[in-house]
């Protein structure tokens, strides 16, 4: 269709940046930051709504985190999805029937690459180009400064709108423990774990009971000499299959049949008790929170390896000494390698936090994507769903594209949506109250969240 030329010389109108820099005005074009799954969906849906798009990606390929080979990827060899296919895929680009219920990272990357090729998205992406600054200008337009990751001069371009899709799972969060600086063993974050071979033959301690922690504990059970797994509280460990179908599909079946939450909880507890049994039997603590009040942790293998003695469960860490780790129950371990699977925090180095309506850690965004005061800036993918990511982000980016279209074609409708956005700024879209930790700040329940997205879309669609 159109060429994706973003930095063409002939586009350079009015060299009039603040400090005399030349600014290339890209007219009505929209800038997308990142070509992971969220950025790709943004490019596709903006193109479908008639926008010119320049997407900047600092890596050399599409796929974001799913490209395990990329240095910054938080993912690792052997990773399989925790969300089954119908939840994970883009709704208008289903994964092939030949894929298994839970594809691995290679299949997911291949899928994202096919998505990019099928819809001709690569021609709109500038690879190896990092966005270093996003600055607001008059009239809701944005000046974007980009630089080649290989070095070279930076350039500034002006866009009508920006979609930030930089991913929120690559900046590690690492708690500090007393004595940690004296510890002589190796300490890494799960972001730096990319291959089970890193664990081979070693004495390994894994900290954190999220999906990364459980996956790495399982890998350690299979590869390491000794494996300890420290968690600070009990989790509901959902197996990948329940009653012969992917657990998330079973859960959604109970919702489609309109069972109330209490009945679903009851059924879920009963099923787990009947199949896996009591957590204490495996040395795990009992979850103190009710089912569905925390981001789902999905693992079939952890319990299996606990039962085989390949993983030794441990409570929280009290302190580190030079060669040991002491736990709160008085026991200790002498790991050679400690893996902190303690999660990630969002980061927007290129953007002043006030544009996100709050600070970096606690943005205040309508539907977790839009600051109504800055209607031409949106964030795609800043969610941690209880289902899969791509499906929800697809609708996020459709909404973003429609809102930008409406601002041109029917401003009254766009304004009405922004008023609603003001009103609903602090609404969360969860099926129930979540455990109040930083880890769950971006959680959304897919039913509630999609219902709200659907409403917002409908308000823009209503025939004139």
């Amino acid at each position, binding site marked *: 269709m159109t060429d994706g030329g973003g930095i063409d010389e002939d586009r350079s109108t009015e060299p009039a940046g603040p400090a005399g820099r030349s600014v290339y005005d890209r007219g009505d074009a929209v800038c997308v930051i990142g070509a992971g799954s969220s950025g790709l969906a943004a490019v596709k849906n903006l193109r*479908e709504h008639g926008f010119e798009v320049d997407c900047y990606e600092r890596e050399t390929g599409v796929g974001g985190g799913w490209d395990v080979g990329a240095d910054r990827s938080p993912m690792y060899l052997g990773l399989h999805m925790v969300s089954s296919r*119908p939840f994970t895929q883009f*709704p208008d*680009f289903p994964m092939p029937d030949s894929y298994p219920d839970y594809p691995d990272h290679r299949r997911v990357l291949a899928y994202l690459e096919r998505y990019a*090729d*099928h819809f001709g998205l690569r021609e709109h992406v500038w690879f190896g180009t990092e966005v270093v600054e996003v600055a607001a200008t008059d009239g809701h337009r944005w000046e974007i400064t980009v630089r080649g990751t290989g070095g070279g001069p930076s350039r500034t371009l002006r866009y009508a709108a920006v979609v930030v899709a930089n991913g929120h799972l690559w900046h590690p969060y690492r708690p500090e423990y007393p004595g940690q600086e004296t510890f002589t063993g190796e300490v890494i974050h799960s972001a730096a774990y990319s291959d089970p071979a890193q664990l081979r033959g070693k004495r390994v301690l894994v900290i954190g009971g999220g999906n990364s922690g459980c996956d790495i504990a399982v890998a350690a059970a299979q590869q390491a000499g000794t494996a300890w797994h420290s968690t600070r509280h009990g989790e509901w460990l959902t197996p990948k299959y329940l009653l012969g179908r992917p657990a998330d599909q079973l859960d959604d079946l109970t919702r*489609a049949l309109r069972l109330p939450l209490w009945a679903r909880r009851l059924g879920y507890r009963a099923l787990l008790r009947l199949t896996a049994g009591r957590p204490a039997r495996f040395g795990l603590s009992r979850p103190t929170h009710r089912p569905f009040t925390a981001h789902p942790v999905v693992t079939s293998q952890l319990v299996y390896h606990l039962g085989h003695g390949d993983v030794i469960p441990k409570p929280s860490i009290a302190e580190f000494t030079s060669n040991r780790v002491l736990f709160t129950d008085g026991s200790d371990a002498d790991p050679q390698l400690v893996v902190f699977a303690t999660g990630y925090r969002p980061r927007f180095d290129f953007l002043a936090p006030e544009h996100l309506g709050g600070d970096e850690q606690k943005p205040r965004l309508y539907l977790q994507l839009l600051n109504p005061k800055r209607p031409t800036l949106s964030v795609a993918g800043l969610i941690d769903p209880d289902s899969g990511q791509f499906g929800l982000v697809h609708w996020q980016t459709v909404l973003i594209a429609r809102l930008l279209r409406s601002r041109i074609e029917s401003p009254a409708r766009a304004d009405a949506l922004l008023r609603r956005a003001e009103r609903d700024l602090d609404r969360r879209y969860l099926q129930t109250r979540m455990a109040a930790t930083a880890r769950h700040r971006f959680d959304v329940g897919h039913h509630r969240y999609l219902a709200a997205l659907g409403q917002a*879309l409908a308000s823009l669609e209503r025939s004139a």
Partner: protein
Amino acid sequence: MSGEVTARVAPTRVWRRWEWARPVRPTTRQVLRAAPSAETDAPPILFVADIHDPGGAAALQPWLGAAAEAGHLAAAVSPRGLGATVRPGPRFAVTRREWVHDVVQEAVALPRRAILVGRGTGAWVVAHALHRYPAAAAVLIDPVGLPGRRMPGIGALLNRPRLGATLLLGRDPRLPSVSPPLLFASADGGEHKALSALAVRYSAQSEWLSAAGGALPDPAPILAWLGTALPAVPAGA
């Protein structure tokens, strides 16, 4: 009638609870393909067979050839239960959802954004598939299951009662809010009025095809229309 009528657009459906709770069971589909002799920029075409096509997609072989000659990578699919595509479980229980799934699966398997061309019940499925796949363009040939033209024939209905019920009583397909160029085509001279009414209703265009006594119509007018409707298709290539 004037061209001023605006087509009814369906609200976007983001909630697909049955899709999540009970996804369509995978199957291996019969797909026939034809490739142009040289690479071109023309979008690929997916043909969808009618319930009456003997051998399903195999009946559309001549279209594949014509499309390939016009520079399109072409594929023809038999939705499950037709031709050589097996429906897991009893054949008579096949549903529209399964057929739409089959069409979308094969559309996304093509290397680029595809044009969907359906005939008879295939056209009906394509009309519904437009809500599930952002096609480059769509062509509905002798459609059934649309307002004014519901009957696919008694035999076909009795064979697949669930599908038949949806065909007869189901909701009319409406346009998705972002809808591709759309063409209605017919080889049945007696259907002129019904077809132009449909074209108006869907803000689409219409074409008449020539066919000798029930044979597969000549797709030349369709391919010519695609050339004009899709700006990206370079002439000749």
